């Protein structure tokens, strides 16, 4: 595309886009254009989208301030959700506790001590009803950060929405459902990789057919980075996983344009400011090129990489926790300058515990300062054309392509096969832990400075923050609730639903979503559904390696 035709296309798209009201000038009154440039004929909203997926970017709509929350029982988290909405949050993101993430009921012996600790405990439809009580699921979009039991949680969510009168086609939101990065990084897996991918396929096909406003997968680099990868590895592994899901859907007979627009992405915002911004720009360009050239996508929405950002949990320090507010602000700014669609800012106390209400509010306020006081949202891709940022973007693109070639080679030309074999052969896991180790050595040697950790230690002994306490009382409450659910439900219905689930799981051609939704409506628990599936699929055991 020539510079002139790119500019013309941008002008047309910008004119057509709705605009928010605002004063688009500097504080001195200098008027601001919606974008400056061009650079290499690149414009926001125009292929390959290096400069942003929308022509008007934040002039149309600010990013969604999507705060991740969940702890204790569903009723506890519901109170926090309402607090977030009252404070001006515009989307919800649910954190589940460890048993739920691993498909175990709260009364499973392995759940001891973990119920409601890291997120909210969900065992059955009764809990999902409490979780969203008083929240209109047709207007607030919901993100559910869950992977191995993602299909089960989607079934529970659909069942709850339909019980409350919202049909499934009106539900907007995102299921994380990115199982590949679980084996690579986050390690919350249940079934072996290939069997898990069957469930992912079923959710992609089901949402493509019945839930037009739903994002079926949030392809997540966040956890890859938190587990220790470099920014380049985060970029390359995440996009490769995205390619793998596209190939999975193609194998199931879905067109790339039926699937790719439903994939969204989730990246880390770490503390290396410019590298992060270059990473988001390179991600958009790479995705667009691969979707168009390699996978033959023709719908522009297939080319557009939309992403959520979370600031880096690993960059937070337990020492002098208040200074984490500054780290988070810098990281959040990188996400915004990089053109994120939504953002979660971490709280200052998260190296110590789950966030207190006050700490979570300060984190949201940090986003509101960036959005409302700094004026940075007035101009799309404000760093585009910087010699440094452009060169760094190109270099990250080049390095990611080298990694794509390695993964494709492992899969003999298939990214799907390459990602699975890379997991089975410990290739991803090994690279990530090598990078984590190298970074740690640079902290220990003092080559990299971390304020409050290896330099500038004055203040480390001061009084500690008041952190959120989760007591065993929540665990007891949840156990009582679960036994009530088991007592109240119709055992014959439960048995029938589970028999159907096992039967359909044994037939690889069946889509399991209808059976899961029926099971959810019969108050079959998460643990019961997952156990039935494990009876057919088996369970994954990672060979320990250092």
């Amino acid at each position, binding site marked *: 595309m020539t510079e002139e035709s790119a500019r013309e296309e941008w002008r047309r798209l910008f004119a057509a886009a709705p605009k928010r009201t605002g004063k688009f000038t500097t504080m001195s009154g200098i008027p601001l254009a919606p974008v400056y440039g061009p650079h290499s004929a690149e414009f926001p909203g125009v292929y390959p989208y290096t400069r942003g997926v929308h022509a008007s970017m934040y002039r149309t709509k600010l990013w969604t301030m999507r705060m991740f929350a969940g702890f204790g029982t569903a009723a506890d988290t519901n109170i926090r959700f309402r607090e977030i909405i009252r404070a001006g949050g515009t989307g919800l993101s649910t954190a589940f506790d460890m*048993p739920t993430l691993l498909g175990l009921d709260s009364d499973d012996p392995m759940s001891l001590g973990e119920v409601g600790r890291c997120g909210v405990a969900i065992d059955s439809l009764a809990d999902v009803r409490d979780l969203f009580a008083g929240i209109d699921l047709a207007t607030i979009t919901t993100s559910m950060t869950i992977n191995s039991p993602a299909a089960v949680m989607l079934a529970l969510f659909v069942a709850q929405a339909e019980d409350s009168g919202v049909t499934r086609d009106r539900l907007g939101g995102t299921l994380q459902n990115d199982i590949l990065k679980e084996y690579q990084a986050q390690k919350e897996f249940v079934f072996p990789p290939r069997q898990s991918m069957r469930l992912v396929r079923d959710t992609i096909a089901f949402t493509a057919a019945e839930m037009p406003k739903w994002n079926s997968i949030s392809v997540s680099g966040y956890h890859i980075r938190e587990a220790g990868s470099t920014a380049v590895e985060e970029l390359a592994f995440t996009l490769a996983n995205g390619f793998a899901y596209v190939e999975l859907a193609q194998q199931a007979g879905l067109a790339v344009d039926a699937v790719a627009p439903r994939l969204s992405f989730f990246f880390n915002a770490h503390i290396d400011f410019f590298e992060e911004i270059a990473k988001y720009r390179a991600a958009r360009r790479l995705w667009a090129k691969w979707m168009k050239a390699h996978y033959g996508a023709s719908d522009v929405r297939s080319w557009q990489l939309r992403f959520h950002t979370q600031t880096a949990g690993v960059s937070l320090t337990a020492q002098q926790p208040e200074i984490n507010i500054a780290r988070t602000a810098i990281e959040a700014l990188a996400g915004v300058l990089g053109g994120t669609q939504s953002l979660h800012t971490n709280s200052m106390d998260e190296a110590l515990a789950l966030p207190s209400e006050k700490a979570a509010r300060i984190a949201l306020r940090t986003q509101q300062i960036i959005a409302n006081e700094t004026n940075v949202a007035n101009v799309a891709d404000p760093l585009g054309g910087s010699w440094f940022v452009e060169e760094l973007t190109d270099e990250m693109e080049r390095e990611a392509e080298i990694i794509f070639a390695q993964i494709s080679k492992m899969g003999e030309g298939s990214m799907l096969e390459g990602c699975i074999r890379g997991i089975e052969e410990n290739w991803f896991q090994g690279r990530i832990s090598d990078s984590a180790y190298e970074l740690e050595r640079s902290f220990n040697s003092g080559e990299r400075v971390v304020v409050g950790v290896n330099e500038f230690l004055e203040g480390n002994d001061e009084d*500690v923050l008041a952190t959120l306490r989760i007591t065993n009382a929540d665990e007891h409450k949840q156990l009582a609730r679960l036994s009530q659910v088991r007592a109240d439900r119709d055992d014959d219905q439960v048995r029938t639903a589970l028999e159907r689930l096992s039967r359909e799981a044994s037939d690889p051609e069946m889509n399991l979503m209808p059976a899961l939704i029926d099971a959810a409506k019969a108050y079959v628990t998460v643990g019961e559904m997952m156990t039935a599936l494990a009876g057919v699929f088996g369970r994954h055991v990672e060979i320990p390696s250092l």
Partner: protein
Amino acid sequence: MNVRVLVAKVGLDGHDRGIKVVARLLRDAGMEVVYTGLFQTPETVATAAIQEDVDVVGLSMLSGAHMTLAPLVVEALRERGSDIPVVLGGIVPPQDLDELREHGVAAVFGPGASAEEIISTINGIASHSG
């Protein structure tokens, strides 16, 4: 003789960055390190520690379950007649330290503990228990 350490992930917490990095740092410092892998129970850890005849057991927990699970590991060892000391690393609020010590946890390393601190503490504990 080299200090032998069993590093373990107990419960459902899959965060393994910290344990792997620390295990490699301990090896760099000349220790022999055995890693259990993920999703262990207090019983499997105690059994492995005794079988491997280690000097110290190191637990890594980032999910908030340390107050329940760390004391259970100590208990499982003592029930099996072992006095192998247990240390803990991860996301542990300072308010929990006293109670963990009362339950027999020999040392706790929070986020940002230096390699030097971890290595010298484990060496100290191992030489006392030897």
